[in-house]
């Protein structure tokens, strides 16, 4: 089972070339600014910037669509509920149900913010190798415990996932079927989960010994930080300016309303 977080990390676009440290700060700034937006009038600009950035990143459209599929269900649920439940201005009636204006606007807001933020986070993690992003986080002050744990977890998720798949296949071959909720089924599934944990625990002891043999935990020479180019800083400045612009526009529009 391979999910390929950074399968397009090797492409060559302006966003790929941007130093991960600055990219992390710039894009996170924009993401937070987007989460601040509450005024529907800002949505077209937000969506336009998101689309432009995605086009600039040269990531294939299929990459985005495949990742929008799952959360799409959630969005669908909100889409079904909000226009009927929220608000007082009735737009039209379908039998006993009334479609309300505030609900529709809320839906538009939630959906646009959701798609924009998700697309930006895909750009952030899709345009650089994952290791580089962790290094960038480390240089921005992420504690070593978190950095090491993130990398090791990432390294082993697929392997342990394969372990689980193999065990489930073996259970199926021996006639186990989880069709109903009963004591036996629950006990077998609990043993399966327990086995995954025990196997991983035993493997972690071997991994730790192997890491110590290779010098883990010994002081290392700090590797030279890549020198920041003017372009990297200019991009960062532009992104932060954009983020600040969104926040300022939101505040101005809100005051205009109030």
């Amino acid at each position, binding site marked *: 089972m391979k999910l390929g977080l950074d399968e397009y990390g090797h492409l060559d676009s302006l966003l790929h070339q941007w130093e991960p440290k600055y990219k992390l700060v710039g894009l996170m700034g924009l993401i937070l600014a987007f989460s601040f937006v509450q005024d529907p009038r800002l949505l077209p600009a937000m969506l336009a910037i998101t689309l432009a950035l995605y086009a600039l990143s040269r990531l294939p459209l299929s990459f985005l669509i495949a990742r929008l599929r799952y959360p799409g269900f959630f969005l669908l649920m909100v889409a079904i509920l909000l226009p009927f439940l929220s608000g*007082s201005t009735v737009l039209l009636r379908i039998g006993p149900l009334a479609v309300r204006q505030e609900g529709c606007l*809320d839906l538009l807001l939630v959906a646009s913010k*959701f798609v924009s933020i998700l697309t930006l986070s895909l750009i952030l993690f899709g345009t650089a190798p994952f290791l580089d992003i962790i290094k960038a986080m480390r240089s921005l002050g992420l504690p070593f415990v978190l950095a090491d744990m993130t990398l090791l*977890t990432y390294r*082993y998720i697929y392997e342990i996932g394969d*372990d689980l798949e193999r065990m489930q296949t073996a259970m199926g071959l021996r006639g186990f079927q*989880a069709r109903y909720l009963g004591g036996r089924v629950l006990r077998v599934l609990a043993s399966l989960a327990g086995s995954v944990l025990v196997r991983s625990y035993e493997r972690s002891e071997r991994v730790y010994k192997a890491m110590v043999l290779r010098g883990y*935990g010994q002081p290392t020479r700090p590797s030279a930080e890549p020198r920041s180019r003017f372009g990297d800083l200019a991009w960062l400045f532009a992104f932060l300016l954009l983020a600040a612009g969104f926040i300022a526009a939101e505040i101005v529009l809100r005051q205009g309303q109030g």
Partner: protein
Amino acid sequence: MHIPDGILPAAVCFGGYATTGAITWYSLRKINQKDDPREGIPKASLLTAAFFVASWIHIPIPPSSVHLVLNGLLGVVLGYYAFPAILIGLFFQAVMFQHGGLTTLGVNATMMGMPALLAYYLFRLRTVLGRKGNRLGDRKGRPYQALTGAFGFLAGAGGLGIAALIAVALLITTIPTYLDVEAERASIYALTLAHVPLMVIEGTFTALVVLFLQRVSPELLGD
């Protein structure tokens, strides 16, 4: 139960990051008090991955199935590493599966991680109660199976229950709707009640896994 991007107001997202920062700081301080904090990292990381994978196991509830949250169990097994583990797990859920989101990472981590830490503290009571001299342990000072099972159940059910309460409270109070008070109260009751059967399943499952671990690999429970 992961709150996605775009729903919560920015202030709540920042609040979530603040509490997550505080709990992470507390956990890391406890971890760094150990002689060699690096020693526990591979164990915690592989178990984080294992929990991530174990949550893919589906429990059949015809005609559908549910997957478990396992945050109570995670607290029991990982102790102070539980909060960083949940933070990392949720981070991967967000960037790999688009389950949850980057802006709500702090909120989600607090919602899942705080109950995990509470489950850890709760489960430690078992060791105290099962000590030599107390009647709840065997002659070698190991807690009885029934005691382990009972605390496993409480940790699992409590972990999910508290997380669900936080989620419901957050969603009801912050979703931009103009619901009236009655409807709001009714939906809080309904959503909370809907979680009771899930808590029973989660608690039972956690108890069974904990008993399995006590039999097969007691060091995972700190015994």
